[in-house]
């Protein structure tokens, strides 16, 4: 495991992916579970942020990073095995006013797993997440938290963190809130200070540490909320539309970070998130649930390798007639939503169709194979 870290981080440093290198070094030092190493990683991160504008990386930073990497490589880490966290079996929910019903849905989440829940607005994603978090009473089925020995919802809610789409307002300084969250999870004194500093660096919040709710943007509020719940060391992290308030770079960063954090060696956890950013979620998720009108219509984990049709998204200046001329009319259907075409073929794979279009010099500005993506259900 150490070698994987080392080679990965070395590669980032070599190719000047300093931000990623710093984040992974922070993770590695936390996994090694030595406070002095974590402190060094925090200092390295601070050096990085001080010289961030220097694309080449300052010698001070590169030397410090290499020194720390050397120390990390000398440590041994035992990777924990994945364990089942929550087993959801046939959970259904109907609101008392009868407006909406979530049909029975089953899935499981283990440590290190990321489960993406996708679907159009108002189709039951938030309801499912709230049932999973113990916020909403279920009508049938069961949610079994296998790792929680103490019975009762208080223990469940202590272990399962839920970040709603609209983050509740907090008061006081950002840093004080983080100290508080760590303290109520039993992280005290020097360890509390260290973990808060770690989390501030890890989520790029250090410069906002002494800011209040009104002084930070919604994107940073999301980051803060993630930092806050992570300090409470949950075994399952549930996020409702965490990407909604983030810019495109931040979305990628947060998803990557969630991936790394889920697979943390010191404190592995399961992550469940809902989002409209299908492709981004699919990239990091181990399983994706597609919810439509309250029913789970598709789970990527259950997908079959043999598919009945191939689907691609295409953005081009060419017209529908040009596309029909190139791809033929047989076994191909073309839909246009005003922005891009969705082409479905039972005869040709997405790659074949792309080759045909390129060979006929059709000008393509965007292409994505969604044969295995939940995106194809969005009609």
């Amino acid at each position, binding site marked *: 495991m150490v070698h994987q870290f080392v080679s990965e981080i070395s590669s980032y440093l070599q190719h000047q992916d300093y931000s990623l290198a710093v984040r992974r070094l922070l993770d590695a030092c936390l996994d090694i579970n030595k406070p002095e190493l974590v402190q060094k990683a925090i200092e390295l991160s601070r050096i990085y942020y001080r010289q961030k504008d220097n694309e080449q990386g300052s010698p001070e930073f590169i030397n410090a990073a290499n020194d720390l990497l050397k120390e990390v490589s000398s440590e041994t880490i035992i990777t924990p095995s994945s364990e089942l966290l929550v087993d959801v079996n046939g959970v259904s929910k109907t609101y008392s006013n009868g407006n909406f019903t979530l049909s029975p849905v089953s899935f499981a989440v283990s440590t290190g797993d990321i489960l993406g829940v996708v679907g159009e607005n108002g189709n039951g994603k938030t309801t499912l997440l709230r049932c999973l978090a*113990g916020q909403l009473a279920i009508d049938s089925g069961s949610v079994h938290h296998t790792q929680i020995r103490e019975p009762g919802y*208080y223990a469940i809610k*202590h272990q399962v963190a839920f970040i709603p789409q609209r983050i509740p307002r907090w*008061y006081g300084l950002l840093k*004080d809130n983080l100290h508080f969250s760590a*303290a109520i999870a039993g992280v005290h004194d020097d360890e*509390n200070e260290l973990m808060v500093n770690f989390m501030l660096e890890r989520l790029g919040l250090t410069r906002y540490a002494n800011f209040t709710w009104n002084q930070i943007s919604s994107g940073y509020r999301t980051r803060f909320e993630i930092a806050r719940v992570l300090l409470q060391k949950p075994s399952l992290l549930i996020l409702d539309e965490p990407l909604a308030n983030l810019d495109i770079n931040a979305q990628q960063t947060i998803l990557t970070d969630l991936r790394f954090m889920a697979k943390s060696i010191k404190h592995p956890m399961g992550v469940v998130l809902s989002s409209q950013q299908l492709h981004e979620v699919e990239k990091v998720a181990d399983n994706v649930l597609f919810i439509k009108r309250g029913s789970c219509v598709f789970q990527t984990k259950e997908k079959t390798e043999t598919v009945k049709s191939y689907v691609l998204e295409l953005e081009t200046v060419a017209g529908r007639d040009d596309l029909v001329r190139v791809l033929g009319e047989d076994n191909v259907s073309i839909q246009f939503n005003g922005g891009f075409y969705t082409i479905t073929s039972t005869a040709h794979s997405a790659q074949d169709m792309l080759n045909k279009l390129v060979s006929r010099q059709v000008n393509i500005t965007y292409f994505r194979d969604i044969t295995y993506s939940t995106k194809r259900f969005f009609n």
Partner: protein
Amino acid sequence: MELKPSFLKHLDKYLLKNFPVSWSSRIHSAGLYGIGFAILIFFFSFIAPNDPRNRSTIYYWITLAIILSLLGFVFWMIYLLRFNVFKRYGLWKATDTVKTYAFYFIITLIIVSWAFIPPITESIRANMAYSSNELAKDINDMNIKICQLESESVNTRFRRDTFQLANYITGMQRKNSMIDVSEEIYGYYFADSANLNSKLKYADSVNKIGDDMYVIYECPDYMFIEEYEVNTFSDVKLLSSMDIYRRVLKNKQPVDPGLYKDLGVLFTKYSKLHSALTLSAGIPDYYNRANENYKVRISDKYDLDLINSSINHITDKKYRWDSLTTEISIHVAYYFTLMLSLLVLIYRHTTRKTFFLSLLAGVVLTIFTSIFIALSRHTGSAFPMWFIAYFVIFLVISAFIFNSTKRSVITGIGLNFLVTMTPFLPLVITTMYYDSLRERYLYSSRWTEYDHVFKNETLHYRLSEVGGFLLLIILLATVYQMLYKKWYSLPED
């Protein structure tokens, strides 16, 4: 501008990182600022221009202090909204509920106590300005000097009443009669032995004119300056009219003109409005109104109302804290603190919706119960009966929480009421017990045992109050914290 002192900042950080339950109650800052503010109120009410001889302005000060207490309470509540370990599902031990309640109680008590500081300060100031011995000595001096100056004009005729022992058993009892002797009305009374003994004990002079007949003499009133409870608290004995008579009037001395000056000094000591200059120069003749009662005349002549009123104001402030007032004040402070701290506890352990619905339900139930009691013409024991009935109902509702799978507003309200009513339960039971005893003894032939049966009533009420508080603490540490934990964490429907 940062007002927080550095030691408090360090303490704040230390508690935040190590004791989040204590930190989130703000015991450190609310406690320190609360005590600091109490000292500030004491300081301002101490240095404020408030002459002990003047009428007390304490009600304005108390109103101001109550407003400040309310502001302080609201300010603390705003800070309490910010962090809540319980609602964040942090590590919450069984003792944490009691611990937080103890903090809320202490802080509320500090804030409530602000309203009591101005009257205490006023009493301290009055005590510092005039000691009881000094007052007693001055009252004696003034009364003697006035009596000396007016020795020729004061009434010296003692009232004399004849008392004959009445024998109720033999039926020797006649109507009391009044005998007009010259300008005074003297009485002729029949009294039983107890009454007669009492009369004899407090008589200024007695003349026994038969085996069962006495003439009791009562000295005219020479207490031109009233005592206003000074005698109770002073080591210096306050002279009675009889004492003054013996000292001054029994053997009259020629009037020393210097007495006016001495009296003037004493008068100005007790009333800055009093014209000592006029007094020292002698009293004008038009004050010598022979036809008026000598006390009225002398009071007008020396403007004694002013002196009496000043001494009254001083003693009002000095002797404000008698046992009854102190007991009432302690009860007011305790029950205000208890109710406010319970409201804070409930607010911190329940949802906002359930909290406000509980308040509303409380108002509705109070109105409903009052109307029902009024219309049904129940006796005094109706309220305790209703209380017990409600307590049982809320106990049953709260018990449903153990098997609930959904968070319900009804069970939350039931639990909130149960917690609020707990400290009053022993008191209500004691009230019911004594009500039933009263029915049994007072309105029956056993009324003679009444005093014996009720001799510990007050003590039992006090013990019930203490017991109620202890019961609340015990239940908070055991059942109630468990119920709140379970109820709050339940999923919603």
